[in-house]
């Protein structure tokens, strides 16, 4: 098979933000690897929903979409003297360069102010762990300006607040809940489907981003990918949260980019729409990733390795591509999440190149499972002091530069099928052999999802397939 008609130059990935938690942004990016091409996701699957926004600086389509959908949301509960906390999570800024998310947040504020007269609309920027993360995001995305100075950072180590739930007392972050109202400003990037199984994605931040570290630990240490959904849901369904939640908004995405903005006062209604979109928009690409026989993965982005995109799919989707995580007939057998997801570890990956990523999240298993080559000394220096991966450098090799690293990975992996995770949506930057491989696999994946898998996934979640159409 030839790739005639699919030869496009590599696409430009989103800029990498300067941060204390990663190397200085690298000038040599994955797209510079000699001979690389880009493969639009629509050449694989023409019916992947088309985006209104692909990552450019002009975010007007996102603003217009947000204004349109917010017009049908009831904001009458918000009084001019009230305080509203708009809650955002760091991963939203990891999607298509983050500017669409920043625009959605700003538009929420503007619409609340315009419609209610309330001027105390604060943004709470919740980071993963690092104390400096919120400040970096606030500065880079000019959130201070967008929110007239009413912006606060938060991390899971900040002061907690008890929330009585069906699971007993769990702890959220005081900074999240100290307003009269909260607005849940989320996104539907499926991210780690292997730990949530696309069941109740809408409530996940209540048990993670908006929660104290002990609550996050509950999920990771004792619950499985399906049962773990209970923590976020228990908090979201608590009387306390229900009394505070004004409405929810989400960026609606597909592997092509941002499709729309959704909003609703009813958390369950927006959650069902989110689940349906995740299954229908991402199912084919996920199935395609499961079929990849062999590849070298290049990680080259501004987030933790698992969360860097290629064609709208995160590296984690490739890393755990061993099983169909959407299929609820597959039993997690009550295993805690780390053991439950191990069954999905990829046999397709033959080597990994790490050009740039953030530190602080454990990913040592990369080096245990695959030859791992770090592409520059700055990234290697970060890894030597990565408290979450103290033994990473015991197994990883360091190359002089990206191109040498890729050569080594291709040689050690025994394959020249290269896929670059660089934050791109809409297209994948890949080697020509990888493009051929994906194009060859796609038609059967499309048939399987259309005819068998999507109807099954929807039915398992009680979503009526005709209603989806």
């Amino acid at each position, binding site marked *: 098979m030839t790739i005639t008609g699919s030869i496009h130059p590599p696409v430009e990935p989103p800029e990498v933000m300067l941060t204390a938690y990663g190397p200085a942004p690298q000038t040599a990016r994955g797209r510079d690897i000699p001979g690389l091409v880009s493969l639009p996701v629509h050449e694989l699957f023409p019916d992947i929903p088309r985006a209104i926004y692909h990552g450019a600086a002009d975010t007007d389509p996102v603003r217009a979409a947000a204004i349109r959908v917010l017009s049908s949301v009831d904001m009458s509960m918000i009084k001019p003297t009230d305080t509203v906390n708009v809650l955002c999570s760091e991963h939203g800024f990891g999607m298509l360069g983050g500017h669409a998310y920043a625009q959605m947040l700003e538009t929420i504020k503007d619409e609340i102010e315009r419609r209610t007269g309330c001027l105390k609309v604060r943004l709470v920027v919740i980071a993963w*762990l*690092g*104390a*400096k993360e919120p400040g970096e995001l606030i500065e880079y995305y000019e959130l201070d300006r967008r929110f007239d100075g009413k912006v606060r950072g938060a991390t*899971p*180590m900040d*002061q*907690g607040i008890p929330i009585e739930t*069906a*699971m*007993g*007392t*769990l*702890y959220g972050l005081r900074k999240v809940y100290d307003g009269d109202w909260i607005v849940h400003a989320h996104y539907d990037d499926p991210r780690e489907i292997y730990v949530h199984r696309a*069941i*109740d994605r809408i409530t996940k931040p209540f048990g993670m981003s908006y929660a*104290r*570290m*002990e*609550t*996050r*630990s*509950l999920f*990771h*240490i*004792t*619950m*499985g990918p*399906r*049962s773990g*959904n*209970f923590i976020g*849901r*228990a908090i979201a369904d608590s009387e306390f949260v229900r009394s505070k939640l004004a409405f929810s908004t989400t960026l609606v995405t597909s592997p092509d980019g941002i499709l729309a903005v959704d909003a609703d006062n009813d958390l369950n209604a927006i959650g069902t729409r989110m689940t349906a979109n995740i299954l229908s928009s991402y199912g084919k690409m996920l199935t395609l990733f499961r079929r990849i026989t062999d590849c070298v993965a290049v990680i080259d982005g501004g987030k933790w390795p698992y969360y860097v995109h290629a064609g709208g799919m995160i590296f984690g989707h490739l890393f755990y591509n061993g099983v169909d995580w959407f299929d*609820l007939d597959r*039993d*997690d*057998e*009550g*295993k*805690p999440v*780390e*053991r439950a997801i191990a069954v999905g570890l990829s046999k397709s990956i033959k080597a990994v190149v790490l050009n740039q990523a953030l530190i*602080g*999240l*454990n990913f040592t298993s990369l080096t245990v499972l695959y030859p791992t080559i770090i592409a520059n000394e700055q990234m290697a220096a970060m890894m030597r*002091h990565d*408290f*979450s*991966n*103290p*033994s990473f450098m015991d197994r990883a090799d360091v190359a002089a530069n990206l191109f040498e690293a890729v050569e080594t990975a291709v040689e050690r992996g025994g394959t020249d099928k290269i896929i670059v995770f660089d934050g791109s949506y809409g297209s994948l930057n890949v080697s020509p052999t990888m493009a051929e491989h994906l194009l060859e696999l796609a038609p059967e994946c499309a048939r399987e999802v259309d005819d068998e898998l999507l109807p099954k996934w929807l039915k398992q*979640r*009680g979503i009526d397939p005709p209603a989806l159409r």
Partner: protein
Amino acid sequence: MKNVKQVIEIVDENCTGCYRCERACPTGAIAMVGARKEALAVVTPRACIACFRCIDVCDDDAIDIAELDEPHMVRTSTKTVDPQALTELCEKAGLPPNQVACLCSSTKVKELAAAVLSGASTFEELALATGAASGCLLYCSVPMRRVLVAHVGEIDDKSSHVRRYDTDKVLLDIPEDAADAYPLFALRQEQDAVRRRHEARKAREAAL
């Protein structure tokens, strides 16, 4: 267990005495020394498990990383304690002995239990004896708390500078009515699977 390869060093002239590093240190390796208005951070190098949380919270460039000439292993061997007591403590904590409790330091529940049986009675002592809590913190707080509480009862945390909360529920603690209210989460099914595995493990141990 963790092979500690670095240690932190305080840059006295940059320290502004803000106390943030002391409040972040999981082993109590940092103490503020001096009268409250003049106190500066002082580190006990042997108690540092290289989590670098102090560096993260420091806004004054007052903490550096130094490479150790000889890295040292922070660990508690499970062979140093009575195997029966170890098994019983894990059972009482409601966690499987071989379950990973801290991914970053590769500490299992049984190592936490061994450390507690060897005398660790606070979060700080447990972190120092095992290397747990030196990484991402996403996993370790619940198993550390459950093992400590199972052995010493409710923890006296007054001397700790680190903020902690008492949540430590596990899957089996979820009430039946709550489990039944959310069938898509398969809570009953997973609880049953956990109980079956517990029984099988106990049977294996009894046979041995």
